[in-house]
């Protein structure tokens, strides 16, 4: 009988480890531990054994049952793991297949540029102001020291609605509107559409976009103009960007300056975009002409102001490598949908003073 028990255990061990599925394992369990299983049967037949052997045999049989149960449990875990692994393998996907994207819209590059500019100047204390596109001749020209019937109006070809009403040729007119209603100190930027009667070509559109800005206060200097704009250039075009200021002429500033930045394409070595000069013209600027300050009721002896204006289309073109301005107005989805990336302004810039 003892030998039989030994044999049962070793047979059971062999069958358990041979079982490769939960179903097979269950069959093994039934064979040994079921109602008619070998160990169960043996336990039941203990009564036929001599009484003095019963306790020992009983103990052995109970140990055998526990040991088979333990083997079964262990094997069940193993087989379950194997089966799970097989099932998972069957569900394997090709991770290189394209993802199913939720529909997401793209930003227009002009608005991206505006948002970034608003962020940069906002951190320097400039608020955003707006004014009408359809503007009085007075604000567009006269208040900015461009009298009626003056040859300097030749510089800008203007769309007229009537003798007194024009489509603004720059957003500088809003400078006057803002200043007229308030007292210094004021710092503001003005994004907006502007209009000039230029036929469309790769670098002209009759409707395009500007950003004007100004700061008026006691003691604003030409140095402040340089510092403010140099900081904008570094934040917008990158920390290594160099700037230079050239004397220029605008009727509403004196002194006037044009700002160039080191070419964003060739970093100053010379290329097609910068016509081999290493510099790109970015904006016009200056200190407000005293006549402008007088027109809004300020005393030019007490208050001075820095002012600047730039083309948002042009800087969008430079920043994103757009070669034809008309792409910005066409809204061909093949172009617009390339601007799905996050606006650079959303990433904190490391700024340096100066």
């Amino acid at each position: 009988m003892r030998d039989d028990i030994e044999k049962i255990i070793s047979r059971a061990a062999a069958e358990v480890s041979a079982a490769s599925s939960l179903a097979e394992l269950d069959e093994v369990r039934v064979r040994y531990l079921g109602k008619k299983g070998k160990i169960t049967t043996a336990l039941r037949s203990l009564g036929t054994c001599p009484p003095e052997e019963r306790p020992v045999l009983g103990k052995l049989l109970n140990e055998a049952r526990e040991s088979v149960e333990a083997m079964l449990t262990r094997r069940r875990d193993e087989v379950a793991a194997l089966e799970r692994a097989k099932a998972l393998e069957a569900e394997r996907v090709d991770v290189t297949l394209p993802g199913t994207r939720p529909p997401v819209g793209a930003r227009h590059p002009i608005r991206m540029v505006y948002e970034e500019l608003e962020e940069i100047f906002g951190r320097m204390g400039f608020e955003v102001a707006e004014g009408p596109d359809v503007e009085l001749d007075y604000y567009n020209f006269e208040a900015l020291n461009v009298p009626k019937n003056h040859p300097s109006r030749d510089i800008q070809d203007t769309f007229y609605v009537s003798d007194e009403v024009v489509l603004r040729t720059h957003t500088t007119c809003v400078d006057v509107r803002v200043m007229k209603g308030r007292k210094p100190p004021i710092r503001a930027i003005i994004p907006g559409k502007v209009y000039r009667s230029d036929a469309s070509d790769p670098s002209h559109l009759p409707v395009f976009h500007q950003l004007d800005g100004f700061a008026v206060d006691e003691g604003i200097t030409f140095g402040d103009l340089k510092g403010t704009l140099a900081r904008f250039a570094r934040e917008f075009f990158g920390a290594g960007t160099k700037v230079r200021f050239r004397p220029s002429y605008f009727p509403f500033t004196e002194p006037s300056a044009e700002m160039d930045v080191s070419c964003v394409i060739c970093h100053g070595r010379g290329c097609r975009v910068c016509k081999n000069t290493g510099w790109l013209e970015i904006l016009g600027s200056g200190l407000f002409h005293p006549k402008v300050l007088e027109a809004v009721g300020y005393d030019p002896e007490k208050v001075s102001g820095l002012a600047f204006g730039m083309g948002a289309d042009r800087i969008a073109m430079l920043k994103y490598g757009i070669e034809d301005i008309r792409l910005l107005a066409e809204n061909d989805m093949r172009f617009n949908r390339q601007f799905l990336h996050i606006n650079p302004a959303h990433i904190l810039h490391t700024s340096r003073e100066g």
Partner: protein
Amino acid sequence: MLVPYEWLKEFVPGLPPADEVARVLTMAGVAVEALTGEGEDAVFDFEITHNRPDLLSVFGIAREAAAVFSLPLRHPELAVPEEGDAAEGMASVEIAAPDLCRRYIARIVTDVKIGPSPGWMQARLASSGVRSINNIVDVTNYVMLEVGQPLHAFDLDLVGGRRIVVRRAAPGESITTIDGEERRLSEDMLVIADADRPVAVAGVMGGLETEVSERTKAVLLESANFDGVSVWRTSRALRMRTEASSRFSRGLWPENARIGVDRAAALIAAIGAGKIARGMLDAYPGREAPVYVTLRPRRVNHLLGTDIPAEEMKDILMRLGFIVEPQDGDSYRVLVPDHRRDVSREEDLVEEIARLHGYDRIEPTLPKGAPPEVRLDPARQLALRAGEILRACGLSEVETITFTNLEACRELRLPEDEVERRAVKISNPLSSDYTMMRTTLLTSLLDVLKRNAARRGDDVAIYEIARVYLRREREDAPGSARGDGLRSSGSAGEDLLPCEPTKIGLAVMGRIAEPSWERRAADAGFFDLKGIVETLLEGLGVRGARFVAAIHPSLHPGRTARVVVAGDGDGSDADIGFLGELHPDVREAFGLRKRACVAELDLAGILAAREPVRRVKPLARFPAVTRDMAIVVRRDVPSSEVRDVMAAAGTGLVEDLRLFDVYEGPQVPEGHKSLAFSITYRSPERTLTDEEVEKAHRAISTALTEKLGATVRE
């Protein structure tokens, strides 16, 4: 303006090499646009700013370069070898319009021998881009290039009465100019006339009949100063922009007329083209008083943020030809030279000092003092948030041209009389496409759909948040329209300007989602766009917007809704926009292959309707019971009405009503539809019993039958 390097060097012999000159002058405000040629053959192309007519000549640039480089300046040869009779006996000059002509000088050249000009002169003209004609005409052109004074040579024998009268044109007068065109003159135009007729349009172009020719024996050489504004207006009116007119338009100074005529006479004598009569005819009614400007060095430094010594300022100004004398206090009295008519105030001197000191030597700083409080415009903030929501819904932003035209409005089936009444028209449009400002974003959005469709882009989902332009009607007081941007209401002329409300425009055509290998995407329809509008309004904090069937000329008559919100507290409702599917006629007119839906919402309307802060609802503590109910109603009963009846009948126990099926077809009677709702019952105070739910459910069912004639199917 082209200037040969070697010509410049004739006046400033010490100049550094051309590329150095180009660099330094550019940084001093005399911009060199291009530099061509090498070494001594280099030619500069200058871009002269509008305020500096004195730089429109070789000598003008030389004078500036001498100041910038601190080099000695040579002057052109002005000594005239006069001979023979006095000019005074040979002709006469009269200025009848002294307001438009400050000075008129004539010299007389006799024994004229017309022929080619010398080679050196022709070469310089050629490198400046001027064609050689004959010796007399070449001299006038040469002198204009050299000293910036436009001149004109008349054949003296053809000048009637040998008499020059500078006057306004008489009514009905005309002249044939040397380009062969007959020009009708108006009475505000200044002409040079002889005893009988105009012989030149002053400052613009000479007449054909008195032109110098091979037969010319005597020449009257004109060197004058005409009013810039008058020349500008005349040249614009006649559509003739000439070298002379553009120089006069910018404003020349009378003293230069004398330099020009003497230089020309000296050259004519030198090249043997004729003899110069003694003296000249010089009518000079417009002699100007000298211009003095006060300079306070402390103020200069205050404006520039610099520490430039007064001595350096003085030196800079003297190099530029200003005469600087000390005055009481720490100030100077500065006499402006004749050729610098652009300088009239202290600020002008500040710029002169800054640019010769060097803009690059001014230290960059940031404005001192605390920055002012930054004001945020709520409408602008709302527009930014709206864009974020719409992009998250799959719509891409567009930025369109704000112009449109009547034809596009017609294609949109907009009522023509209303467009005529409200649209802002451009009086000088560039093309027939852009004749007026848009009155709705639809014209612009449809234009985008059209362009993409034409390029086989049939799936377009876009939005734009931008202005439309509406001519003000009597009831719109200036500045009253919401979302109008900055206006100082009440100030002069504001009522001439249109309203410029900002609109949110949406358009979807074809699919919104990208097609995927895993799932196919369907074309968007009315309810996709409505869902986006609902998401947008929800996201912007507008609650309880209602959609009411409506009619819009551009839209499908059965698929159009107005968006209505409760008004600003006075109980009335306000329209904040519309949405719908494009009318098939519109779709065809714009060449769209797929159906498209559009919406336009008013930003100010949304701003007024939104709840500033939404407070949270407590989470439910008692269980809910969900029961379904299918009903059949007439097709024309709006589902919103069904919902309203259900909610009202639910005795406060209905927490949610979700419509999950709409069906019309064989199992439903003709002219009817089946709606299936899932109704969630819940009480905030207790667990509902089956009886309570059953009672409410039956109450709803009864109300639907009684109020809407609905058949309820369990």
